[in-house]
């Protein structure tokens, strides 16, 4: 009986210690966790740049510049390009960009000139391949950009400062852009030699003109000259359906004369690179400063 009582007391004592220790452990947990939190560096969650000029946040951007196509097959374009944008915050904006071609046919590519000169030579040769088009007719169906109007969303993950020649300092940002719009194409003429007698719907050649839906993707950068003015460079790819030569791409032949047929089926998606440089003004003219 005595032994049983002693054993029971011991068991109760052990159980009490376990309960006490468990209680201490449970209660101490938040304290320990809090201590861990206290040991965290005060730089935790700090932005890497403080007192940063938020040069875009809630500001309207308006300006104009020039753009030039890169690597066009037949006609390069020098465009007058206005741009209007609104920045929802420092890293996201919505922009509208226009472009009007100031050099519709006055800036032919070197490839255009090579083809033209070769065809002139070919046309004048006694051993001419009669299937070669007339040089002027060939050039007449080559199209060019007339104007464009695109919308774009700009995502600006990178912004910072640069020192040029250790003496000129500028704020800048890099962004990617994407959107869509309309591009208008035109050509000098629809030559008579392109028409197939009695089959106007099956022309031998046909300049592709009119408006096309275009997708717009690219990258850009601002280099701020002041807090309210910036140089804005953009490189974009305009992706639209085109047949720049106005001649058969698929190589389909008309059965009656074995000459090519050019239709809308010859249109294909093309990449058209455009680089632009604008001067942009920001409103309001005073930017916010971050903490």
């Amino acid at each position, binding site marked *: 009986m005595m032994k049983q009582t002693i054993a029971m007391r011991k068991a109760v004592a052990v159980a009490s210690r376990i309960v006490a220790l468990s209680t201490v452990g449970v209660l101490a947990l938040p304290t320990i966790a809090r201590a861990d939190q206290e040991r965290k560096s005060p730089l935790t969650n700090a932005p890497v740049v403080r007192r940063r000029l938020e040069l875009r946040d809630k500001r309207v951007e308006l300006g104009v510049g020039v753009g030039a196509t890169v690597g066009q097959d037949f006609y390069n374009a020098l465009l007058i390009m206005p741009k209007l944008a609104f920045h929802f915050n420092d890293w996201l904006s919505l922009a509208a960009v226009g472009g009007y071609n100031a050099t519709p046919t006055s800036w032919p590519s070197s490839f255009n000139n090579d083809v033209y000169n070769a065809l002139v030579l070919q046309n004048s040769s006694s051993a001419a391949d009669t299937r070669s088009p007339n040089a002027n007719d060939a050039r007449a169906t080559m199209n060019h950009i007339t104007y464009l109007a695109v919308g774009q969303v700009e995502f600006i993950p990178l912004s910072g*400062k*640069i020192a040029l020649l250790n003496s000129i300092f500028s704020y800048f940002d890099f962004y990617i852009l994407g959107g869509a719009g309309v591009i208008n194409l035109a050509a000098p003429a629809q030559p008579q030699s392109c028409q197939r007698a009695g089959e106007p719907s099956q022309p031998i050649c046909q300049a592709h003109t009119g408006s096309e839906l275009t997708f717009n993707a690219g990258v850009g950068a601002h280099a701020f000259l002041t807090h309210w003015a910036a140089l804005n460079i953009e490189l974009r790819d305009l992706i639209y359906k085109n047949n720049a030569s106005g001649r058969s791409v698929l190589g389909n032949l008309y059965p009656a004369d074995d000459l090519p047929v050019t239709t809308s089926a010859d249109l294909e998606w093309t990449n058209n690179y455009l680089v632009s440089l604008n001067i942009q003004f920001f409103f309001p003219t005073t930017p916010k400063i971050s903490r």
Partner: protein
Amino acid sequence: MKRLALGLTVILASLSFPILSLAQEPEQPASDAAGGDKSPPPPTESAPAAAPDLDLSDLGEPGEAQGEGAASKKSTGAETGAPRKSWEDIVVVPRKAFLKKYRLELAPFTGITLNDPLIRHYSFGGDLNFYITDVLSIGAEGQYFLKELSERETLVGAQYYLVPTLNKLNYQYALTFGYVPGYGKFGLFNKWIVHWDLTFQLGLGLIETQIIPRAYGDASFTNKDIEGQIGLGVRLFVTDWMTLSLTFRDYMYEDAFEWEGRYSGETLADLKTQSQDHQSQFVQNIMMFFSIGLYIPPSFTYRTPR
């Protein structure tokens, strides 16, 4: 059992006290001179001296007008000498992240030609640069090209019944001089700082080209042309020993194309002479390169104190 209950009560009380205190901390205004800080309380008159080295509290919230409220807030904090443990109290001016002086850069690259609608070249090669200073370098580059004819090249024959006269590129090497005109850093989502610089390059070297005969099966010859080049690029510093670069270079040279008057039975030497005499043309090849720069030695030591 009584002792156990008493013990538990004491433990509970002692443990809950700091928890309650901690929970109350944010509510406590910084008016308590002791402030929970171990440092002695500052004298009342010289309270501002106890403030951090650079007080940024007067900036206010972003975009906040510096009104009366802000002034009063500032005044309260300054007078009390309230301790603050926040990133706002610490000034960090990062040093230049990467030093290049007396280091060797080995940069394998790949590139593509941009400005010829008929033929495209892919390039594989490398740069070897030694930095005399942090912004000046001398070096060498070499690359090998692979050609690809474009769809437009195929269509020239189908649409105009013409065969284009083209040369392909074989290889190129040059001695180069590099300069870094600009150095910058940007915040990536305002969380990470990335350092970068602008690179400018001039070079002089040799490029080998080869004619693509207009008539299939005809023999071809090669040209070894002296070329000059100019380049501009950006370089991101990734680690102490690695960089990523995007570079545009313009290679300029006089090249001889297949003579248009080539006739059957003409020797290759004659053809080359005729081509050089009648079919030479100044060529500009604009190329874009992506490269990874590896630096030797892989680490560097700052020579100035922080």
